[in-house]
């Protein structure tokens, strides 16, 4: 019997892997994909909680998260394209105009 703990373990592991990618990769597109992975890991946790609680609210929350994530991807990729047009790079270490 698969209990809630199993799903939480998978969800947190996926979240950690996404976090690892955001911290240790320097390509903005890969970092963005890892962000999507983290959002999806949260979705899995929410659905598992909703299933084992017997309610509906977790599922609806995930529905809204997916909608917002779709909008976020569109805007984020447009920003990355605009940035690439301006600076000819997507490496985070070269995008340091605000730092110095």
């Amino acid at each position, binding site marked *: 019997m698969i209990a809630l703990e199993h799903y939480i373990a998978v969800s947190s592991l996926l979240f950690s892997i996404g976090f690892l990618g955001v911290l240790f990769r320097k390509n903005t597109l890969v970092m963005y994909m890892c962000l*999507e992975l983290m959002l999806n890991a949260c979705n899995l946790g929410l659905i598992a909680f909703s299933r084992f609680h*017997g309610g509906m609210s977790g599922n609806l929350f995930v529905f809204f998260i997916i909608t917002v994530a779709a909008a976020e991807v569109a805007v984020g990729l447009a*920003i990355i394209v605009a940035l690439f047009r301006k600076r000819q790079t997507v490496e985070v270490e070269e995008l340091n105009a605000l730092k110095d």
Partner: protein
Amino acid sequence: MTDIFFYIFSMLALACAFGVVFSRNTVNGAMFLIGTFLSMASLFVLLEAYFLAVIQVLVYAGAVMVLFLFIIMLLDVKETAARKANVYTWAASLIGFGILIVGVVAINSADSIKTQAETLPEAQGVSLKNFGYELFTTYLLPMQVTGFLLLIAMVGVIALSKRLDSQ
């Protein structure tokens, strides 16, 4: 039987997630991400959230990843090495993992969850009718706000994509 499926699909999701992080080629990473999304959709099916599984495949594995692949191929970024990790990166990762482990242990040791796991309640997320009813009664305002957010995102993307320096 469902236990075996759970292990298969969670292993697949984790393996593909490692592929996203560690593959040098960005297109391969995007392909691995599609694999992760599909195996997570199967986990959603195991949790009896059929509608969300379909939405996951259509929106994430479909629309979002097509957008990602399009941008990856448009920009044609070269393969890159991993970032040189400095002290702050290591500190951030260690603190993050520590907090996550504390959270998972706290959740798993809570009494209210232990009692729920034995007697599994009836799944509510199965029927589409429930979904639509809840969306248009209890969650009517968030629904409309989300629609407005999509409109704003569309306008924002058009404004960002316009070539401003050519005028």
